[in-house]
């Protein structure tokens, strides 16, 4: 089913989404990948504040290529989400509501998604040029020294994603594959 939602994402919207829904996101989202997750985790370990308020927000696992002049961003597709699994349950428990990435998640992440009524989206991996067209603005807001791995605030318009794990724990990677398996 095709749906349009805004970001930050409300509890109501998050819970209305089901695995398999094709969703267009409009609003503000944040990027963070390996190195930024490690820094956020270290900050939490030292009881320091995070550079972004996670509540109701969506993190996009993405490190862009550099923008050419006059453009907001370069190529901007998802990276493999499982590398962030170690850090994710803690962030979900702190209010993170959505994640955009690609690939499988751990059981611990899935449980944290259900516990917090959150949602895991996939964007199409390797479609970074196409996806960049839905990003209207990009600004580094933390960890500038990490280069492509810095935390960026993105303004997105009809950013296309697919719900993989919904707030009830249904997982499209498991169900969809079975429908086309021919042994």
């Amino acid at each position, binding site marked *: 089913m095709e749906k349009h939602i805004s970001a930050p994402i409300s509890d109501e919207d998050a819970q209305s989404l089901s695995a398999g829904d094709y969703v267009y996101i409009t609003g503000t989202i944040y990027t963070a990948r390996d190195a930024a997750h490690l820094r956020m985790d270290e900050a939490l370990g030292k009881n320091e504040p995070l550079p972004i308020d996670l509540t109701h927000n969506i993190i996009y696992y993405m490190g862009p290529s550099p923008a050419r002049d006059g453009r907001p961003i*370069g190529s901007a597709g998802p*990276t493999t989400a499982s590398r962030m699994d170690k850090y994710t349950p803690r962030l979900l428990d702190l209010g993170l509501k959505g994640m955009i990435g690609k690939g499988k998640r751990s059981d611990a992440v899935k449980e944290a998604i259900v516990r917090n009524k959150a949602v895991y989206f996939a964007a199409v991996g390797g479609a970074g040029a196409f996806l960049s067209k839905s990003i209207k603005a990009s600004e580094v807001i933390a960890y500038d020294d990490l280069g492509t791995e810095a935390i960026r605030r993105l303004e997105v318009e009809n950013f296309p994603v697919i719900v993989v794990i919904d707030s009830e724990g249904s997982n499209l990677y498991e169900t969809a594959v079975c429908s086309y398996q021919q042994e």
Partner: protein
Amino acid sequence: MRTIHTTQITQAVRELCIEANHFLTPDMDDALKQAANGEKSPLGKQILNQLQDNLQIAGEDQIPICQDTGMAVIFMEIGQDVHFEGGLLEDAINEGVRQGYVEGFLRKSVVKDPLLRENTKDNTPAVIHYELTLGDQVTITVAPKGFGSENMSRVFMLKPADGIEGVKNAILTAVKDAGPNACPPMVVGVGIGGTFEKCALMAKKALTRPVNVHSDIPYVQEMEKELLDKINRTGIGPGGLGGTTTALAVNINTYPTHIAGLPVAVNICCHVNRHAVRKL
């Protein structure tokens, strides 16, 4: 003896890095078009059509096909009648990578040390493989390799008794474990035989063979076809979200091996299977 100045190498590598990250080879383009037409899953078809749009935008607007513009893997085939002047060849290649990635707006994804992890900020060094050939030509292949799929690659040290079925199972296991993480539809590069490192290198090199060209060894060709069919029956599909297109090709290279061994390497590449070639 032919003399080639290393500045020519730098220039070629620079251009090949940029070309490879914006344009796929015609065989890859065709395979992806055919896949979009043949896919049975509606969502899978939508994803494959998105990949078509992606390639068009990448070429027209000069945006890299994928933001992971890879670690630069470079195959150098060097005629043994060539003499290089102008400094160390390796330095000239890395200078080409530096220029290509910095001036070509490509992402810098290389860290100086695998554990200390400080970015080198110019995507150097490259991973370079040299091969000597007859004659006085130099063939440079630049194959930027993304790590979503690289991370899902495997080496299996099988026993001779595992035989051909063992090899097929190893390849299928690697593909199934990779699933959505490797950005399917993938290209599967396989090396069978040699030693631990030789099979891995063969698997990497196999990814640069056109996807519409089979091995010229009859039984290997049969294996390539059978495995592609089996992989496309796993149901993994485009993006791992279900469908009939999981791989575009299985390319297998083989080499003699030891009486005690049967090494198999599976190097998985995503649908952005990049390589650009130039002869000097």
